């Protein structure tokens, strides 16, 4: 499940940040933290919007919705911001359920990302509810605005 939001452009800010030298990565990370928070909030609310129905076996080509137990597992799983990675030219992080761990479902131990992926992408017997794609696509503008705001604030501190 890789849905990426890449923020580039912002030429004025980039020019200002070039003057900051070593502090640039630190400021970029602070901005990214705010932007990632916006996306993580969207993901949390999107998870709560998953439609469910009591568990049943899908037969004869019918499709089923996720059961309330499956939704509860995804809701209670850690879907937060991952450790920041400084690649030298950019600062990266990810929001999602990559390291969410395992859960007990129907007497089996199932990886939580697998449950989330089945709900998100749909399977041949489960309805598709693309909550991650919806969260990342709709949060893009808000995340970019949050990043710009935070970076502008931080740069002003250094200019004084």
């Amino acid at each position, binding site marked *: 499940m890789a849905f990426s939001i890449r923020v580039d452009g912002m030429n004025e800010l980039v020019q200002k940040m070039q003057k900051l030298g070593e502090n640039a990565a630190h400021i970029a990370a602070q901005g990214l933290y705010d932007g990632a928070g916006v996306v993580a909030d969207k993901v949390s609310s999107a998870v709560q919007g998953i439609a469910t129905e009591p568990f049943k076996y899908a037969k004869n080509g019918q*499709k089923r919705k996720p059961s309330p137990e499956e939704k509860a597992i995804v809701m209670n799983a850690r879907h937060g911001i991952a450790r920041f990675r400084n690649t030298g030219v950019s600062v990266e992080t990810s929001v999602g359920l990559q390291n969410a761990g395992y859960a007990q479902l129907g007497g089996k131990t199932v990886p939580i990302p697998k449950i989330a992926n089945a709900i998100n992408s749909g*399977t*041949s017997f489960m309805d598709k509810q693309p909550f991650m*794609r*919806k969260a990342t696509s709709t949060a893009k503008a808000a995340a970019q605005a949050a990043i710009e705001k935070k970076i502008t604030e931080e740069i002003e501190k250094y200019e004084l």
Partner: protein
Amino acid sequence: MPDEYTALVTALKGLTQGESPNTVKLPMAEDEWNTRPDTVSYGTVRLDFEVDALHGDNVKQYTAYEGSVDLYSLKRDGAGWVALITAALTDHCEGCWSLNSHQYERETGLFHWEWAFQVEE
């Protein structure tokens, strides 16, 4: 329904009319209808959600929607439909779609391709 989406659905359904790469026809359905377990491959196309909108004069002037095309196939290579669907999407618009995921269902033995695309109204 946006006109672009209607055109895309028509194009994808049109794939089944022409010469198919193997003898099995691909039933390309809109929304929740599918024809598993009779066929080797089947596909669905649907609009998922509204991405963004530009408002003016208190009404929506432009609205962007995101949708997805799903292909399920028992064959590892998608029985030739992957290239056809990719070509149909590229004909529709070159930069507005991407292969979102490719996965395998162990329970049913189906390979699953998922493309996401954006249309505008």
